[in-house]
């Protein structure tokens, strides 16, 4: 503790010394600079700087002669969905950043070939980089905030904040870039360490003041419509924001730049984590798809839209933390590679824990993805109506929860094993033990396993659904009432309920699929005209198609044709095709209608009347009305 206080005191003393020494040093430096500028050296330096500017500018101009058309096309494109907005924004960012990077790259590369006066090249390169930082910040802010173009905005920011945010970002980039490049330059090229210190102090103070102004200036202003919306006033965000800024500044002032960097990064990561949910769900807020889906489809679409944002949110949280850790490591100037290979047990353990955390996050991500997908599918199927038509989704109601549990188990086992391995605990014996145990269990539960596996395949192949009438190879038959993991429950038409394990289901004959063809015979007297009857049957068939009651069940209308002639009987074979299970109703209807139609046409059914000729002494004797034997 006292060490820290001492360090803070030393730092304050150093700052005081900087402030005291800087003016004199600064004057000397400026004099030297002016002297060397007002000479051939100065002219050469300025000439070279202008050359760099021209070269960078030329390269960028050349780039824009090609890229300006695409940029305008991107700007003029009206995006219709969130994904398009993001895609267009990223492409614009790519174009803008390419221009900036080309300028910087060309200028810095060109500076290598010129023979500079001492120290000027460093200054030129520093200024180039500084310019690059500011312009990149500008490009990012422009793409993210899209001033004046609310349809293109990629972050949820109030429209009246955008210009202020834009200005804040630019100024912070300006000061930040200056703080990164200028004091170093003053120190190394100008040999003026005190001036560099004062410069740092000035820039840090300016940045802190700017952020404070931003925090109280526009972040603190409540939205104008607070009363109109009758909402509770939001938590005053400006105070924590200001506190964070002040904390960062104080840490910088009393501690060190690295410590302040870490503080700022941690604060930024926390703030980002807080706003990340809004930022991610902003893309699925339906802001862009107002006209896309009709009102009826909206709830389903909203449900389907929950999966992706969840995954993106988790991934972004993970990414923000990872980037924050990386940034902290850079701010602390930690030699990461060296640290990882060092043999300190504590360090290695910390790294292992870091790895486990990353692994847990990753597996959490996968779990969220799987669970959301399955839940969504289940929700979209909804509860099953046992009295409705056989539903192809019914098997999913069985399979999906099973899949969810299996996935959870696999993921947990993977996580545990990988974590143990990452921490350094040997997992081979565990695996071997689990293998032996699994083998024993497998032998014991052979039948059970067979049933479950066979069941999975039956379900996967969609062999039967709830409500279908099936016959199994073991002559069990009935309507499927329930499907579980191990058995299928079949209701026999006489009432008994069979529970058949999948393993003994064998061949399955499904009577309820696609269509059924039903045939029946129509015996008519031998003397009827076949063609008339055929037409009559056809007419009945057409009439049935029009019928409200049975018409929708028919797939092919009733047709009939003469199929056999027996003594005294013409047998007409009738045939129709219906949806499964409806053939009996339709057949009854058909026979009823045929009977009426035949009666109307004056045709009776074959009555089995036969003519028998008996001969007695050459006189034939005709007996009418004898019944066939």
């Amino acid at each position, binding site marked *: 503790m006292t060490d820290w206080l001492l360090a803070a005191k030393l730092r304050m003393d150093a700052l005081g010394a900087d402030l005291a020494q800087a003016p004199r040093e600064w004057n000397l430096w400026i004099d030297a600079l002016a002297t060397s500028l007002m000479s*051939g050296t100065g002219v050469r330096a300025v000439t070279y700087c202008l050359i760099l500017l021209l070269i960078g500018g030329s390269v960028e101009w050349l780039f824009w002669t090609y890229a300006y058309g695409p940029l305008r096309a991107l700007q003029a494109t009206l995006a219709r969905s969130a994904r398009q907005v993001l895609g267009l924004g990223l492409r614009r960012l790519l174009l803008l950043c390419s221009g900036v990077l080309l300028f910087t790259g060309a200028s810095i590369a060109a500076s290598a070939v010129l023979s500079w006066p001492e120290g000027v090249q460093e200054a030129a390169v520093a200024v180039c980089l500084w310019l690059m930082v500011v312009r990149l910040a500008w490009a990012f802010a422009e793409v993210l905030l899209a001033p004046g173009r609310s349809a293109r905005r990629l972050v949820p920011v109030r429209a009246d904040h955008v210009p202020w945010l834009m200005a804040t970002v630019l100024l912070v980039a300006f000061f930040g870039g200056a703080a990164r490049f200028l004091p170093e330059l003053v120190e190394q090229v100008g040999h003026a360490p005190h001036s560099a210190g004062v410069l740092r102090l000035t820039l840090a103070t300016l940045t802190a003041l700017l952020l404070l102004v931003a925090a109280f200036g526009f972040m603190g202003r409540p939205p104008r419509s607070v009363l109109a919306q009758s909402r509770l006033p939001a938590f005053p965000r400006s105070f924590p924001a200001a506190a964070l800024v002040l904390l960062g500044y104080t840490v910088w002032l009393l501690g060190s730049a690295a410590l302040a960097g870490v503080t700022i990064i941690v604060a930024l990561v926390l703030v980002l984590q807080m706003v990340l949910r809004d930022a991610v769900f902003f893309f699925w807020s339906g802001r862009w798809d107002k006209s896309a889906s009709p009102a009826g489809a909206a709830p389903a679409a909203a449900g389907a839209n929950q999966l992706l944002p969840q995954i993106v949110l988790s991934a972004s949280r993970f990414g923000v933390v990872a980037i924050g850790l990386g940034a902290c490591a850079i701010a602390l100037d930690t030699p990461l590679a060296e640290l990882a290979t060092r043999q300190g047990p504590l360090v290695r353990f910390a790294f292992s824990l870091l790895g486990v955390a990353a692994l847990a996050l990753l597996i959490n991500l996968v779990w969220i993805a799987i669970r959301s997908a399955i839940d969504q599918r289940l929700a979209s199927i909804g509860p099953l109506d046992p009295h409705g038509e056989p539903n192809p989704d019914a098997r999913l109601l069985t399979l999906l929860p099973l899949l969810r549990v299996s996935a959870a188990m696999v993921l947990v086992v993977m996580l545990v094993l990988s974590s143990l391995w990452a921490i350094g605990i040997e997992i081979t014996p565990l695996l071997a033990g689990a293998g032996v145990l699994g083998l024993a269990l497998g032998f014991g539960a052979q039948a059970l396993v067979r049933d479950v596996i066979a069941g999975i395949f039956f379900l996967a192949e969609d062999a039967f659904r709830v409500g279908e009438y099936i016959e199994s190879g073991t002559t069990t038959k009935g309507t499927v009432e329930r499907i579980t993991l191990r058995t299928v429950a079949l209701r026999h038409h006489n009432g008994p309920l069979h529970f058949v394990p999948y393993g003994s289901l064998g061949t399955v004959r499904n009577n309820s699929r696609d269509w059924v063809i039903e045939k029946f015979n129509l015996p008519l007297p031998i003397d009827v005209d076949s063609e008339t009857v055929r037409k009559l049957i056809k007419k009945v068939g057409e009439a049935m198609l029009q019928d409200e009651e049975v018409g929708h069940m028919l797939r092919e209308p009733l047709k009939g044709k003469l199929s056999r002639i027996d003594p005294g009987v013409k047998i007409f074979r009738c045939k129709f095709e219906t949806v499964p299970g409806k053939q009996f109703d339709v057949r009854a209807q058909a026979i009823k209608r045929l009977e009426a139609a035949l009666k109307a046409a004056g045709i009776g059914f074959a009555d089995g009347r036969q003519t028998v000729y008996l001969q007695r002494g050459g006189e034939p004797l005709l007996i009418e009305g004898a019944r066939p034997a």
Partner: protein
Amino acid sequence: MPSKTLLRNLRLLSGLVLMAFVVGHLSNLVLGLHSVAAMGAARWLLLDPWRNPVGGGLLALCAVVHTVLGLYAISARRSWTMSRTDVVQLVLGLLTPPMLITHVVATSIASDFDRNFQFAYGRMLAVYWSYAPKYAFQQLFVVMIVWIHGALGLYSWLVLLPAWRRIGGVVLPVLFAVPILALLGFAESGREVLQRLESDPAWKSLIVDNLRPISALVAQTESAQNQVVLGYVALVVLVLMVMLVRMLHARSQPVRVDYDGGEFALGRRGLSVLEIGQAAQVAHAHVCAGRGRCGTCRVQVEQGAESLSPRNDLEEATLARVQAPPGARLGCQARVLGPGVLVTRLLPAHADASAAREPADWIADGASGQLEPAP
């Protein structure tokens, strides 16, 4: 009201003459990459044509004409909406005269004082590099400003010409290379001159002897220079005031422009359709930034054609060149004088200079300003 086409051609012509002079000047500097002697040797071709009364008079006339027309164009502006290129052109154009005046005065005094002294390139360079770096800086910045202004103007004119496809590949690199090489030549010759100053005391004393009276003369003219600059600043302020008054004058008369696709923009009476649209950030192609050259801002007037200003000669010529349909207008030239109009943009907003060079390629598509997003 003078003819717009005439004004435009005058401005272009005077600009081209000035640009030719600057190219000659800078090409001479490029020779410094070889030697100071080479610079002197090429002088008769690159610089002397402007030294005689005819060339000098033409140059002065063109400078005055170009400046006056530029100031006139600024005063004739109706709104602040301009492209970034326009802003750069405006600022650089306004900066050029005051930056250039010292150079002109100093060189003419020096040449009057001793013709031999002035034309010996090496001595002038020695003054710049050793005795008066202030002038060197001024020169360097003037070169940058003038060249960027000229190159932007030349490029935005040439890129619309059908010939650009053939000459573009040559002109663009030249536009980039000339100032870079000239500055490099300046640096190289400076090094040579500085070395000679070290090694050749007689030459050095000659320069010092001549320099003293010249600088005294230049100092005498300083107040006159300041007055000229002051007068120029006053003129610029006047021009800006005129622009401001014109803008404020029409403020209270709002008009409305409706676009195909349901967009609309509100603006002041007297602004062009393009200016009103730009202020409201309506996507509307305008490759030449409202100069009436490119024809990419052409629109079909669906309703309220009588609210628009009549066509001027510039608009007629451009519309004929781009094979526009009969009822079309140029968005940048048609000013809204009545309550409102409904227009259909004839080219998509991303139309580039090729739409001006090869108008036939762009006629089939682009009936609407809204395009499908690229796949």
